[in-house]
């Protein structure tokens, strides 16, 4: 059974259709890549799944429950975690406090327990200098913090929205290793990414979005040779 699935999910912004009857599923333990050209609706999909936007039509199911009308904070508590396309550190909180937020409100832990869990998670992610100000962190560290903030709530599915953007080749390799480690622990992961190397190396399956619709679905090798996918990325020969 799918851990998370959507049923003809549609999202309109005024006259713009960002998602059109998207039906996809996340199988337990898999890494699903979500790719597509700019404006295809990838981030909108994550935002609708995380509850930031409510769909115009269609339904979302998580562990067999209809969560279509659940607010975002409830979905996080149920086990849907995410990072953001643009880095969003809470700049009046220190590094450790940023991570603690996920444990405090995602799992309802006390401050003492949240601090302990957050420092364990920071160690797992390879983060040090936990009392640092967020302005003192590198891009890689902020990305890791965002992953840690989601992970510390023990999610069942995690969306990584362009988590590799802005990282150099070595840093991407390090991130890929971390994501693999998470999968080996049973986490289901949705990867939204423009860096094709990441999609190729990490994903079990790929969903291609174009103009808000599912264009293709399958293993990377299959999808990347699909002429419709190639023309969506490169434009059609007129």
């Amino acid at each position: 059974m799918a851990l998370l699935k959507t049923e003809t999910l549609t999202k309109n912004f005024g006259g713009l259709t960002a998602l059109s009857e998207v039906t996809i599923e996340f199988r337990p333990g898999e890494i699903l890549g979500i790719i597509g050209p700019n404006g295809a609706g990838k981030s909108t999909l994550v935002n609708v799944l995380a509850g930031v936007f409510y769909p115009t039509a269609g339904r979302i199911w998580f562990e067999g429950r209809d969560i279509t009308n659940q607010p975002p904070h409830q979905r996080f508590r149920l086990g849907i975690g995410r990072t953001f396309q643009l880095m969003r550190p809470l700049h009046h909180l220190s590094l450790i406090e940023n991570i603690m937020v996920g444990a405090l409100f995602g799992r309802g832990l006390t401050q003492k327990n949240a601090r302990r869990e957050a420092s364990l998670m920071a160690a797992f992610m390879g983060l040090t200098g936990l009392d640092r100000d967020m302005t003192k962190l590198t891009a890689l560290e902020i990305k890791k913090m965002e992953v840690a903030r989601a992970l510390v709530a023990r999610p069942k599915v995690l969306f990584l929205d362009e988590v590799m953007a802005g990282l150099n080749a070595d840093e991407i390799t390090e991130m890929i290793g971390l994501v693999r480690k998470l999968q080996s622990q049973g986490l289901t992961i949705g990867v939204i990414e423009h860096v094709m190397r990441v999609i190729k190396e990490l994903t079990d399956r790929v969903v291609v979005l174009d103009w808000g619709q599912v264009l293709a679905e399958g293993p990377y090798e299959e999808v990347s040779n699909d002429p419709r996918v190639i023309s969506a990325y490169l434009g059609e020969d007129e």
Partner: protein
Amino acid sequence: MNKAVKSLILLAVLVLLAALPFYAGAYPLSLANTIMIFMVLALSWDMLLRSGQLSFGIAGFFGVGGYAAVLSQVFGGINPLLTILLAALTAGLMALILGLVVLQLRGLYFAIVTLALAEIFRVIVTNIPDLTGGHEGTILKSAIFAGHTYKTYWLVLAIAVGGIVASEVFQRSRLYFALTSIRNDELVAKSSGINVFKYLVIAFSITAAIQGLVGGAYAQIYGFVSPEGSFSVNFTLLPLAMAVFGGMSRTWGPVVGAVLLGLASEILKLYIPYGHLIVYGVIIVAAILFLPEGVVGLISKHVLRRS
């Protein structure tokens, strides 16, 4: 500075303040009362601001508290001290109910609506003269403690200590994490399990209850309420200036701001009787321009740099 030394200093200050009536005259006591009353209002305003919500409604809940205290004594014969608690309860409940609607708004829209609320409260009490005394307001037969200076001072001191404790609870509990997250990035907050609306309603209600409590005490101390007096814009603007001057988003900012501006206002009044408000205004503008983190922010930055 280690914890024990800090606690000892705090305790010493508290003892000195509690004993103030035994070595100070009536004038310093009344000045201390005024400063502490504005201090708690400044703290309550800052406590809500820690969630990013800027309120101009201090005078509104202050006035509501004042009326609740005076009217419940006049019509209900309730003990004056209890009426102050009732004032807190009334203002808190009103904020809870209004908050369900008003807290759908953010930023400037929220600020403007809170300003309007204060005005609406004033108009309402003015227009039900049978209950409130209309324009003239309502006078109590006697001020609280029959005007006993010492007892009145201790009441205000207790409220000030309570306000500081409440502010520290906001800074040390999970509220701190919730409100700071909401202030920094609401999208991250709600995506991290924080029920944003719930925490905003909590913060709005508690801070309004504090403003109501102070309003109730103020009305009991001076023995009357009136639309112009109880809802005066001074109860919004002065606390706001004190918090900005002292430093926002920390307990000691509004406390230090209230003491410094409170004293400055008294001294200026002596030297330039009619121009003191202008100088007062200049100080505040200068603070906003040159001390973005307030006096306390400046001090803590330098102390931190040295250690």
